């Protein structure tokens, strides 16, 4: 295989990695946000993403709505679902010191949604096809699928909007404060339920964005969600928890690892390479690669 190796091929692998990794990045940002205020890994994140992929699929198949137009429906809907999830299920457990209750709830949601999807859409892999699914740009011999480029744009746009929200609005400031120390945030007057609700709304909202991103890129089935959550978790560990930029970069790095890993080590090993990198980062730089660690005075 080394014999086929050319500069164009390397560039192609890198481009593929980056384009695919951005989807991991969006998922990781959502995980990071919910982890920030709730202090749990929201394991159902991947399953929620695939749920919204199916929503997009339905909107396309049944109503003929273009996937990227359906963002206008799916993202607000997913944010509402995020709010409802927190208000109905997590509100009580969020107040407990023991975070395991919240974590178990997330696992429960994952299995529930997973099986609901099985019932509704069966286990057959699906993929959406539109007029432009097959459209590719070929600058300098490199293939860039249009749909992946759009996904990259979506990722950058949502990361940018989220950063603006966190830096420039009072509510964003409260989310950042609560992520640093929820107890203290509460004592300076921040309503913990309000910031948790915001974290869920945005976190699940990002699952909506990622879900639509997945729709035309890879074949998906209901079980795809769990793998996705694991990937998002790796991306988060690579990038460092608590930074939007870090999570996005972590996702892209993971995409690169998988893309290059599957070529140089073999397709079956791609995930082993990703998990190996995950373990190495946890061993040697547990705070993440893209976070400048602040030393406490």
């Amino acid at each position, binding site marked *: 295989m080394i014999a086929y190796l050319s500069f164009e091929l390397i560039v192609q692998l890198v481009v593929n990695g980056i384009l695919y990794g951005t989807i991991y990045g969006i998922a990781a940002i959502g995980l990071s946000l919910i982890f920030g205020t709730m202090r749990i890994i929201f394991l159902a994140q991947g399953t929620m993403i695939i749920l919204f992929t199916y929503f997009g699929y339905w909107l396309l198949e049944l109503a003929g709505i273009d996937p990227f137009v359906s963002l206008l429906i799916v993202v607000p809907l997913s944010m509402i679902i995020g709010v409802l999830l927190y208000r109905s299920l997590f509100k009580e457990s969020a107040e407990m010191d023991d975070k395991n209750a919240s974590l178990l709830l997330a696992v429960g949601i994952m299995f529930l949604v997973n099986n609901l999807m099985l019932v509704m859409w069966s286990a057959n892999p699906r993929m959406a096809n539109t007029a432009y699914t097959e459209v590719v740009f070929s600058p300098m011999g490199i293939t860039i699928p249009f749909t992946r480029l759009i996904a990259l744009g979506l990722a950058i746009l949502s990361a940018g909007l989220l950063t603006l929200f966190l830096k420039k609005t009072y509510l964003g400031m409260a989310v*950042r404060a609560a992520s640093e120390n929820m107890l203290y945030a*509460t004592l300076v*007057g*921040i309503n*913990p339920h309000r910031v948790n609700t915001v974290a869920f709304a945005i976190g699940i909202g990002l699952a909506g964005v990622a879900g639509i991103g997945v729709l035309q890129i890879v074949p998906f089935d209901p079980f795809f969600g769990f793998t996705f959550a694991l990937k998002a978790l790796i991306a988060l560990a690579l990038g460092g928890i608590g930074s939007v930029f870090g999570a996005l970069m972590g996702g892209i790095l993971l995409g690169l690892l998988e893309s290059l890993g599957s070529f140089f080590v073999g397709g079956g090993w791609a995930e082993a390479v990703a998990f190996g990198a995950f373990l190495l980062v946890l061993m040697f730089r547990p705070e993440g690669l893209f976070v400048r660690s*602040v030393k406490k005075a």
Partner: protein
Amino acid sequence: MVSTSKEELLRLEGIYKRFGGLEVLQDINISIGPEEIVGLIGPNGAGKTTIFNLITSFYRPTQGSIFFNGKNITRLSAHKVCHRGIARTFQLVRTFSKMTVMENAMVGAVFGKTQIGMQASHNAAEALELVGLANKKDNLVAHLTLSDRRMLEIAMALASMPSLILLDEPMAGLNSAEIGNLLKVIEKARDERKLSFLWIEHKVDEVLDFCKRVMVLDYGVLIADGSPEEIANNSKVIEAYLGEPSA
């Protein structure tokens, strides 16, 4: 010494707190008036910080009630107690280190009293001015000295426009120049803002010098409440700090 005057800001009435079988506070009755600076001293483990945790609703009392401005706040959640006008600082400084000085003060201003816009930035800026951090408002908190972070914590409390501030060992880790500065800020805050302070401190001498009224807690019981002179000559207090005189 439960005062029944109308001039009363905070009242703790028959407060008990147990953790499992451990009785941490027994029948605590405290009353604090407006513009009072009250020192709360006592040996380690006497239950001083527990009183703060009860007032700020971080814990619920096993028995008893807490009134603020004549209203029962015993069962309010922590952020609502803050909205009513009780702010707090911590023994181990708790500021948001990944945010700037101004952002920290803004958090205090916006969420401490749910005020928004110009009013909030005005209050935040004014609080930073009062504690002398106005020139560092764009610095990242992680880069501040301990003394500056302590001041910032007080500024965050002030920005929420409280009527009572609970100070938990504000002098811990500060040198004498910094302590002098801190005392000036506290007096200024009381005079300009008509505030009351309830102040936990390990440094007994400073408290007796500075506060007009001091309370002493020992093993969960309030053993003295009075002027510094009364406290210094109270035999129970001397016993609590120095042990029983050997015969």
